[in-house]
């Protein structure tokens, strides 16, 4: 390859050559460039179509007006005779040009960038007009070479003009230039960095691409997913991270079915300029999105903790009263079998295979469960259910779930599902010694264990239902790994078997003790609910829990044979459900939330955009605490840092206006504001200085961090 100096020398040599040649295609690096016109003459008082033609060598490209992750747009600087004016470059539809994890927008092959020149009426006929332009571009394959040329074009001035030999080229280039799109019902919605562009297409759309007309709005390399939905076509995009600007409009070019070049196959392109509104956007483009920078959602740390938690949870499953005996019986039988008959063979190979087969069975069962759950959730989302802690009924449902789990752990009633299988005769059937038997044991161990594992599975389900699909699948798989781990370990090291504690009453105690974390969770959920809907609604839910306890207790009696109690259970259960969910349709929720706003502390005002802008306009610094009652980190920061006297004194000293944006309930204005900072969650701490410049503080505050930030004011 040429060195950079060689390239410059070559370019200079070519430029000198260009100065002497007129309107000849000129080779610069890996392209031939030329200034051409659509007509053979200039006609006074009319428009003249001229253009920069770039013929790229194979695999080389130049860039569109918005180049994507890297690159530079081609620039044309006109030097025109007096009275002439040049219009903007009419950019034809570009192509997506991926390079590794990055994406560019540009052109390959034969490109014409047309420009309209306005010819003044007073150009005397018979003259020759010289149109000159300096063109600069960046041409790249995977390596890039900046290129430039001084080009010119001479045309006679005549009363009438005929099409030039390039006229057809102009016609086809013009057809590629997108015009403002007249789309039926077009809208752009954003939620947590996910953007949905929707419209009702006049004819079916099989392929759709979006090219942004402004930088820093969407992530160029993110997958763009087209979905045909009930109300038309939807294209899912990913917002840029971080977005440096306020994202209020989405401007860009939509290219459908291969664009105008494929006009006979329904291809078209159009410019859109839509207001961006905050709303619900399904998570379709998210999985394949943002290959370079991590998205704002899943944090590596919490993911890691979730997986560790799942693994430990899986281990715990083995200690449940109905799992432990089954598994230890199976283990004992296998090891005895081994010793008796296969002593001559490889010592542990077969045993290990059994361990592996069992693990595979457990894993499969968990992954199937997760897949089922994700499918159900997908169906729920289609129906418009949101699984969010900002929705009071979700909190109420979770409270009920955890309360029932607690009662179950204490033994008020049993989950009868799989009860027959868990009986000893069923367990005996699992004592086969074939590999398929071990696989089935693994598969069934999960089902058999359901009476005891249900509480834990319930918690895992509650967690997974709020997570993206890949994470939910992973968490469940790890839960399975945790459950299978001791078994596999024991089959690999049978000596450990002797160390195993005997099944006994300790397991029952363990199960009962686990009920109390569940009740603690209920307390916390109810506290959140109180912030959302007020104390009246919480009282209603608590009443519902009492009824639920009655129903559960009666149900437990029925399970032990006292069948006449079933009427109590049947009567109490629907009443309990009614009481728990009553507030969602009673309207009690709407006003009661004021009771316990998170931002009640002295010195804090409720955030709103106008309040923020008014304060900033008066030249005072502003600190905004984006928070929610259900956010544990927010509460910790509030109590341990923001509430501290030293911090409050510092706020007062710097005359900082304190605003609190409470996201405990869903609030579109706050959601939008968070999105401006490329967040989809709280906490978020923003300090505006006197000039209005923002300083975002970390999610986990310390006194030092806040004081330092204030010190910089």
């Amino acid at each position: 390859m040429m060195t950079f100096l060689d390239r410059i020398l070559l370019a200079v040599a070519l430029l000198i050559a260009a100065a002497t040649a007129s309107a000849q295609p000129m080779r610069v690096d890996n392209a031939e460039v030329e200034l051409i016109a659509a007509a053979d003459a200039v006609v006074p008082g009319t428009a003249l179509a001229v253009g920069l033609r770039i013929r790229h060598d194979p695999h080389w490209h130049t860039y569109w007006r918005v180049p994507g992750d890297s690159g530079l747009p081609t620039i044309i600087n006109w030097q025109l005779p007096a009275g002439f004016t040049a219009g903007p470059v009419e950019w034809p539809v570009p192509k997506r040009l991926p390079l590794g994890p990055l994406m560019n927008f540009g052109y390959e092959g034969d490109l014409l960038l047309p420009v309209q020149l306005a010819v003044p009426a007073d150009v005397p006929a018979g003259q020759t007009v010289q149109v000159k332009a300096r063109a600069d571009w960046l041409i790249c394959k995977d390596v890039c070479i900046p290129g430039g040329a001084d080009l010119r074009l001479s045309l006679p001035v005549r009363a009438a003009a005929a099409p030039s030999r390039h006229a057809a080229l102009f016609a086809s280039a013009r057809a590629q230039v997108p015009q403002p799109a007249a789309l039926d019902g077009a809208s752009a919605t954003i939620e947590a960095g996910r953007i949905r562009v929707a419209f009702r297409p006049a004819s079916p759309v099989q392929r759709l691409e979006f090219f942004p007309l402004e930088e820093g709005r969407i992530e160029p390399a993110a997958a763009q997913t087209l979905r045909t939905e009930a109300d038309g076509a939807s294209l899912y995009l990913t917002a840029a991270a971080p977005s440096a600007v306020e994202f209020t409009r989405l401007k860009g070019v939509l290219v459908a079915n291969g664009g105008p070049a494929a006009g006979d196959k329904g291809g078209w392109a159009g410019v859109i300029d839509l207001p961006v509104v905050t709303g619900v956007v399904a998570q379709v483009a998210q999985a394949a999105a943002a290959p370079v920078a991590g998205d704002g959602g899943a944090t590596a740390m919490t993911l890691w903790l979730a997986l560790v938690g799942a693994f430990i949870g899986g281990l715990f499953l083995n200690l449940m009263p109905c799992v432990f005996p089954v598994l230890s019986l199976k283990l004992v039988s296998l090891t005895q079998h081994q010793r008796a008959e296969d002593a001559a063979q490889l010592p542990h190979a077969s045993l290990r295979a059994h361990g592996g087969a069992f693990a595979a069975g457990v894993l499969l069962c968990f992954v199937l469960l997760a897949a089922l759950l994700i499918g159900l959730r997908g169906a729920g989302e289609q129906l418009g259910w949101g699984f969010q802690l900002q929705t009071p009924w979700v909190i109420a449902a979770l409270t009920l779930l955890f309360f029932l789990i607690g009662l179950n752990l204490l033994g008020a009633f049993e989950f009868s599902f799989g009860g027959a299988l868990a009986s000893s005769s069923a367990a005996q059937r699992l004592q086969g010694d074939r590999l398929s038997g071990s696989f089935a044991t693994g598969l069934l161990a999960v089902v058999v264990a359901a009476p005891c594992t249900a509480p834990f599975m319930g918690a895992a389900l509650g967690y997974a239902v709020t997570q993206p699909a890949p994470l939910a699948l992973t968490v469940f798989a790890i839960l399975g790994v945790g459950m299978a781990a001791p078994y596999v370990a024991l089959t690999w090291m049978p000596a450990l078997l002797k160390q195993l504690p005997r099944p006994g009453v300790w397991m029952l105690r363990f199960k009962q003790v686990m009920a109390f974390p569940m009740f603690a969770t209920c307390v916390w959920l109810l506290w959140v609910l109180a912030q959302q809907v007020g104390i009246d609604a919480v009282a209603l839910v608590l009443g519902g829990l009492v009824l639920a306890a009655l129903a559960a207790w009666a149900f437990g009696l029925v399970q032990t044979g006292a069948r006449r109690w079933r009427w109590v259970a049947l009567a109490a259960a629907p009443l309990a459900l009614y009481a728990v969910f009553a507030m969602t349709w009673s309207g009690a929720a709407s006003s009661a939330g004021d009771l316990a706003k998170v931002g009640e502390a002295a010195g804090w005002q409720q955030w709103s955009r106008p309040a923020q802008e008014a304060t900033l306009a008066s030249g005072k610094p502003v600190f905004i605490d984006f928070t929610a009652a259900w956010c544990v980190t927010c509460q910790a920061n509030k109590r341990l840092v923001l509430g501290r006297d030293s911090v409050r004194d510092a706020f007062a000293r710097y005359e900082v206006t304190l605003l609190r944006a409470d996201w405990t309930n869903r609030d579109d204005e706050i959601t939008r504001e968070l999105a401006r900072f490329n967040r989809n969650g709280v906490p978020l701490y923003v300090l505006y200085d006197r000039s209005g410049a923002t300083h975002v503080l970390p999610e986990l505050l310390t006194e030092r961090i806040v004081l330092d930030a204030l010190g910089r004011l």
Partner: protein
Amino acid sequence: MLRRVFLSIALLAAVPLPALAQAIAGQPAPSFTLTDLDGRKVALTDLRGKYVVLEWTNPSCPFVEKHYGSGNMQSLQKRFTAEGVHWIVINSTAASHSEYLKPAEQKSWLQKQGAAASIAALDADGTVGRAYGAKTTPHMYVIDPKGLLVYAGAIDDKRSANPADVKTANNYVVQAFAELRAGRPVSAPSTQAYGCTIKYGS
């Protein structure tokens, strides 16, 4: 935060969790460990208490040439390292790419240019580049003494490969430091980087 909610259930305690390391200005800079061109380990966490500049480079890139050929990058390196800033030059070109340089080649190029960076390293597997979302060469990042990312983006506002533009450009790194030294927050904490695409491996 939903995750956090359920985790706190799992952990049976209301433990606030540390924030994510993300290459977004105003947030903690992603931590990394690199092996420099002489084989020494360099960890970002060891540089706490100092300002750190990350400069993504690729000697074959005309935009890098623009800033080294004009002496711009070297003078920035000299000026800021003299002020106690740790300046780290990182090349994330994949070993499979034709523009990949071996450590010795990268080193001799830097020497020939008269570069004055504190540390230079290769990141051929692209781990650090991807963690920061580095897209182009050059792509600049400034990390403050507390480990917060305070600037991410272009080196300056003249998006060209023309060395003559260096003189008239507004250098965002210089601007960021001027504001930081004056005790003000960085007014343009993130800009659109320009330059050659970083040649990451697949």
